[in-house]
């Protein structure tokens, strides 16, 4: 348990930045600290959060997944296709969405492990393939007319957004898993030194397949949540989502070289990005400047964090 909790302190710098920006926003706007706005932020970060948790698994094995956004679209389309009112029980479309994501993730994993192709190429290929399949399956049109029982999943329960509950649940499970499960430990070992892990008797192939498939399932979940939230399966949804998700993970201290990183770090990364997006809108900063400011804050936050953790 210790090594992971230690890491929360390591990511202290990011926490400070989040709190400082929060303080700034609550001084300059009346709304930032309101309950309804914080609920908003929670709702908005959920999809990126689920994706970021998923891709944490892959990044820890020293891999990468560029297909997140496209698989979100494909799973959303798949889910929506089976979610027309009165046709099926609500569990079927959800299952289909998750299964689609899982299939894509598993395919990535097989190509990376058995095929020996670099994860960058495999998942870039999956990115175009999944996008193409989403367009083919939907005929290029959003799949609308989703049953309210499914779209309600983007609503609230006891005032808490359901997507947030999904994110929180996924994060909790991932946290426990990476901390306390053998397979979790093996993921770190494989990412830290693949050959040494193999020599210690770990089946690198199985570990990687697991990581990619888990990432796929969570991507599928994100696709289902997105479809529920937007009440459609959009074949061109999720463009560049992978960048936000990977950015959150790396901000949270996970190394792209593998073997180092934590779920708590990823959560902080997700919160920072969500806070910036929300704050810039609340302050009505013009679109052009939003981009510039967002880029500067993210790089600055990571820079501060690394300085602080070095000393």
């Amino acid at each position, binding site marked *: 348990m210790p090594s992971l909790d230690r890491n929360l302190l390591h990511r202290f710098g990011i926490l400070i930045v989040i709190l400082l920006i929060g303080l700034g926003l609550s001084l300059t*706007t009346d*709304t*930032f600290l*309101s309950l*309804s*706005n914080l609920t*908003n932020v929670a*709702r*908005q970060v959920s*999809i990126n959060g689920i994706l970021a948790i998923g891709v944490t698994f892959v990044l820890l094995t020293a891999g990468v997944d560029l297909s997140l956004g496209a698989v979100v679209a494909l799973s959303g389309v798949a889910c929506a296709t089976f979610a027309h009112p009165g046709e099926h029980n609500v569990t079927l479309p959800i299952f289909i969405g998750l299964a689609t994501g899982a299939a894509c993730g598993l395919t990535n994993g097989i190509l990376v492990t058995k095929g020996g192709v670099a994860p960058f190429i495999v998942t870039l290929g999956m990115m175009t393939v999944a*996008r193409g399949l989403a*367009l083919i399956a939907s005929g*290029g*049109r*959003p799949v*609308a007319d989703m049953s309210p029982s499914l779209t309600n999943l983007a*609503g609230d329960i006891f005032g808490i957004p359901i997507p947030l509950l999904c994110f929180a649940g996924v994060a909790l499970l991932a946290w426990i898993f990476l901390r306390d499960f053998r397979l979790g430990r093996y993921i770190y070992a494989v990412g830290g030194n693949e050959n040494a892990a193999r020599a210690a008797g770990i089946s690198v192939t199985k570990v990687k397949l697991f990581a990619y498939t888990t990432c796929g399932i969570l991507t599928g979940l994100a696709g289902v949540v*997105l479809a529920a*939230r*937007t*009440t*459609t399966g*959009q*074949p*061109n*949804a999720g*463009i560049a989502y992978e960048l936000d998700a990977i950015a959150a993970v790396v901000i949270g201290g996970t190394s792209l070289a593998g073997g180092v990183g934590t779920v708590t770090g990823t959560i902080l990364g997700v919160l920072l990005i969500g806070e910036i*997006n*929300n704050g810039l*809108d*609340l*302050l*009505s900063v*013009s*679109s*052009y400047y*939003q981009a510039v400011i967002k880029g500067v804050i993210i790089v600055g936050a990571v820079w501060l964090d690394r300085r602080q953790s070095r000393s």
Partner: protein
Amino acid sequence: SLAVVLALFTGCKKSSTRKEGEILIGFSSRDLSAEYTAKLSEAVVDYAKTKPGVRLVMVDAQSDAQKQLSQIENFISQKADVIILNPCELEASTPAVDRAKAAGIPIVLVNQVTKSAGDAYIGSNDVDAGHIAMEAIAKQLSGKGGVLMIHGIMGTSAQLQREAGAREVFAKYPGLKLVDHQTASWDRAKAMSLTENWIQAHRGKFQAIFAHNDEMAMGALLALERAGIKKEVYVIGIDAIAQALTAVKEGRLDATVFQDAVGQGQGAVDAALRLARKQPGAKENYIPFRLVTRDNVGEFLPKK
């Protein structure tokens, strides 16, 4: 492995071999993953199929003007008889038109103009779309009130022109205030988040939202409905995509602006064939935008 690669080709044998006297039309579509363009392109393809002795080759520029330019170059080397161009950009797609003209191949522009005039133009002026949408808002608010505007991807022709049209209306009604404006990159989920944030920041200060397309209008609509304040806000988009029309019919979305995808597509094919056969015809054919509200939505809904 060799077999696999070769097998890929057997499916599409000598598909591009020319038959005698056949008219070859090259068509470069702006972006087939955008619903409106997809609809337009489908109309072009379907309509061309009904014409005997015509073969149409469609390619997708995926919103990249340089890619589109390459595709026009490909058509030139394929010796197409006529080209239909659905330009990505006003400026950046201009060299594509020049290139075709220099090669002596007639070119029809559809839906979007470029700096250099083509041999024919079928379409509408996006400035009008912005104008119509904002006029509808002005009328609804009686020329007074706060408006939010959701942009498409910044710097794209449609975004620029729709904004320009809207700005004309703001200039006309000093009582209309642009409370805030921001891009959501044509994306529904982004527009939803943006509107959620705006509800926090500007609640009560706005009575209407103008989104540069229907996808984003639907996103704004969902956010307003979730917050339970849809009744306080008038929402309008552009394109008249299927889901928007349904929403107008159900009284959820207030209005959208119809652009005649099928009309434009068929018009483009007709113009192209005229040019290929060197027949005379109108050089420009403007198909006007039309405001769609609950009153006239029946005309636009797909016939069952």
